[in-house]
């Protein structure tokens, strides 16, 4: 009798733990979905801002100074690159992890905070891109002046003396690129969580 009760108790504890694990996966999936949708919205508004700033720069400087015909077709190294690596989620599977290497042609190759973001699926709120740049440069030791030089170099296709609106547009598109990488990482996390939830449901039904 006592043994029966003990077995029944153990079974109930096991079921409870399973339910807790399922709830945890479900919560993580919903969190990642919420973060994903928020980031999509943020990307949309950042891109809108960037395009309007670009139009404002064309308005200030003239269409002959800002147009696609001035972009450099000479072979040159990319200023920014994307690194894809495999991150182990558990012993059975791994998921891709995206890292943005901004202004990689500079001497120290500044790494964006996207690298830290790729390890955490949680949403980071951006207040001021310049403030985050300062924090990154402090962490990595890359002088901000090198980053500014690289930015000016990439804008120099439109001339050396460009409108502040064009510089703002550049920063907006930089932020958009970082957000895209965050979205990609969150998307893989979300899909991974979805598969976990799906597996748990199948186990329960099976």
């Amino acid at each position, binding site marked *: 009798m006592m043994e029966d009760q003990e077995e029944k108790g153990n079974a109930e504890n096991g079921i409870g733990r399973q339910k807790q694990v399922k709830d945890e996966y479900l919560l993580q999936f919903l969190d990642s979905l919420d973060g994903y949708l928020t980031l999509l919205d943020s990307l949309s508004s950042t891109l809108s801002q960037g*395009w*309007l700033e670009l139009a*404002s720069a064309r308005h200030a400087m003239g*269409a*002959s100074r800002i147009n696609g015909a001035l972009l450099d077709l000479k072979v040159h190294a990319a200023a920014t690159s994307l690194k894809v690596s495999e991150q182990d989620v558990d012993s059975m599977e791994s998921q891709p992890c995206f890292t943005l290497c901004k202004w990689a042609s500079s001497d120290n190759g500044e790494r964006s905070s996207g690298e830290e973001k790729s390890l955490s699926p949680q949403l980071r709120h951006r207040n001021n891109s310049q403030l985050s740049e300062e924090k990154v440069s402090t962490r990595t030791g890359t002088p901000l002046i090198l980053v500014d030089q690289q930015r000016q170099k990439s804008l120099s*296709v439109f001339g*050396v003396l*460009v409108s502040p609106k064009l510089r703002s547009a550049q920063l907006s598109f930089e932020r958009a690129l970082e957000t895209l990488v965050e979205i990609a990482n969150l998307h893989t996390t979300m899909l991974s969580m979805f598969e976990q939830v799906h597996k748990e449901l199948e186990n329960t039904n099976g």
Partner: protein
Amino acid sequence: MYGFEAMTFNIHGGYLEAIVRGYRAGLLTAADYNNLCQCETLDDIKMHLSATEYGPYLQNEPSPLHTTTIVEKCTLKLVDEYKHMLCQATEPLSTFLEYITYGHMIDNVVLIVTGTLHERDVQELLEKCHPLGMFDSIATLAVAQNMRELYRLVLVDTPLAPYFSECITSEDLDDMNIEIMRNTLYKAYLEDFYKFCQKLGGATAEIMSDLLAFEADRRAVNITINSIGTELTRDDRRKLYSNFGLLYPYGHEELAVCEDIDQVRGVMEKYPPYQSIFSKLSYGESQMLDKAFYEEEFHYGVFFAYMRLREQEIRNLMWISECVAQNQKSRVHDSVVFIF
């Protein structure tokens, strides 16, 4: 009345002054801008513009429209009007009208040289050039490797030749050198135009000296603001400012050392004409240009003022079109300059 222009101006300039005053009456009004700012699509803008003088230029454009198409077609109207005035003009008005286009010529030269440096196709670059700044040998610019060749092969036979004396070096063309060349040419052009107007004398000299002084001052402010945070040194910056204008010479000395926009504002606010209009520099310019039509008759300033007002109107149309196309109508009033 500055001289006895009323007695002699109409002999050679009367017809064209009447023409340009007629053109001026065709500029868009506040009601037109109100209608345009409420458009939902670029086709709506085309529909509203069909009731204006731009109508014939846009009516055959197929949908979907692009903002660059609207700007190109509106610019064609300006070019047609300019060419009509130029072919009817006699000296010295014809030279005066040609001076108005040298700025566009400089922009086209820099566009071709920069595009060639970036290995772009010449035909593609020629399509982007402003029609008012075209000249016969412009395509040959793609061959030059440095400024000396640029001058020797092409520009020596153009009206820009005299402005090149300060630019001729054997240094290769790179982004910084091209920028310095652009601004040095423009500085020389403005100063030459100023001297030409002074030689004409009378009402033309008086009115044009104010308008060109404003242009020189606006250029100085733009150069200052755009060079903040760049590798352009203070001495190089000072060299790009024109040697006339309200800000010359003391304002230029202060602008040359400015490190941010607040310092620039501080410098400008010391000059009463610029105190209240610093934030609305373009609006102030439009007011000055429009005054040239009303304050005096029998001078060439009306032609310069009309060209600048039309160019401002085209920029307004470009901005309104971009805001409508990007669904940002709330931002329309950020950059539209109302002329009336």
